[in-house]
């Protein structure tokens, strides 16, 4: 459980109070809303000017540029290094197979596509068994197929996950709870379908997401068009 109590940081975060539990929670809002800063405060790399943060001991994070978290010449050596750091006696090949990177084992992590690099950096952040995982802008630079892979990966994670994004359709697809931020404050939080009403969307200047449009037309709560088609069938 992560608890933020009246957290202030410069002019960026203005008195945020929040409780985050199991499942995927998305911080959503326009650029400059304070999402990344809030993630940095949760990780502990930034200290709030005022307020209290009750966080688990081990906080894993994957930031906007996944390439910053690589240090080794190949994916295999990178995973090997991560396992060694976490003091885990797991076979590297088995682990690569498990995370779906066996075919890329001998490739440089710096030459992976953005989607592959993102998923690898998430896996590396999970190796040391953090109690909570934070992901900043997970969809930046990803194509539609990579987004689907990432969504699948996120659903497999068993610990609480917080993602900060302005990709509203992706957020609806993967998250259980949404926290809408604007200008350093929380303007709405809760279930995806309750949060994205006209008033909130107007406030953050986002267009109406596809899932909400589908809900308004059909009255069925679905996260994407494939889910709707399967329900109709």
């Amino acid at each position, binding site marked *: 459980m992560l608890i933020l109590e009246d957290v202030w940081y410069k002019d960026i975060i203005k008195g945020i109070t929040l409780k985050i539990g199991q499942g995927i929670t998305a911080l959503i809002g326009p650029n400059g809303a304070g999402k990344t800063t809030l993630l*940095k405060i949760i*990780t*502990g*790399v*930034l*200290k709030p000017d005022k307020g209290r943060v009750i966080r688990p001991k*081990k*906080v*894993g*994070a*994957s*930031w*906007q*540029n996944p*390439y*910053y*978290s*690589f*240090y*080794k010449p190949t994916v295999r050596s990178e995973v090997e290094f*991560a396992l060694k*750091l*976490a003091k885990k006696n797991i076979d590297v090949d088995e682990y690569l197979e498990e995370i779906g990177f066996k075919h890329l084992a001998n490739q440089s992590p*710096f030459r992976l596509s953005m989607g592959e690099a993102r998923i690898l*950096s998430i896996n*590396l*952040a999970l*190796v*040391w068994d*953090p109690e909570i995982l*934070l992901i900043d802008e997970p969809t930046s630079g990803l194509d539609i197929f990579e987004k689907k892979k990432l969504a699948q990966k996120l659903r497999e994670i068993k610990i609480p996950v917080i993602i900060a994004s302005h990709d509203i359709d992706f957020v609806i697809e993967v998250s259980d709870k949404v926290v809408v931020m604007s200008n350093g404050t929380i303007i709405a939080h809760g279930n995806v379908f309750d949060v994205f009403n006209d008033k909130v969307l107007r406030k953050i200047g986002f267009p109406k997401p596809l899932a909400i449009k589908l809900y308004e037309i059909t009255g069925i709560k679905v996260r994407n068009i494939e889910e709707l088609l399967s329900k109709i069938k």
Partner: protein
Amino acid sequence: MIFYGKILFVLILCIGLAILFKLVKRIIPLLLWLGIPTFIILSLLFGIKESIDTTLRIVMIAFSAIIAFTSPKPYHVAYVANKLGIPPIIGFSQLYVLRLLQILNDALREAIYAAIGRGIRSRLKIITLLPIPLLVHTIDISVYLAEALYIKYPSKTRSWIEKAYIGKLDIVVFLYITISTLAYNILLLPF
């Protein structure tokens, strides 16, 4: 309170620089000419408080711009350093350091945060690992820059296709920026 911390800091800095470069006589009439009419017009439109605030901001922008354009150029600093016996390679690398410091500082912080996110909590380990992602990032950025330059100014003599050459100056600049920003950022780590 109208006087924000940053404005006050810039004001003090600008006054100090203006005195140092003997620009006070040239700047004051210009600032009065800019500040007074701005204040009068704004106070008629928005009231006293907002007009003082906005006038101060406009004056500050003009003040710092004037100082930037009329004060010594960065290579003057390098020449002075050379005269003092500092090797030219160090003196001239200052110019690059000053220009690249902010970019590398941001990259360095990102890399430190990424290491912390992977569970690396030892400062020494972070220091030893950081140069790798930073070097890759620097090469990537330089390739983007070279591509942009090639598209903007294509010529036979200035081409990114040519074999990359890393000279002494590049190494000195890289080490200099890395060490200076690393020391600063490592001190800021919360553990």
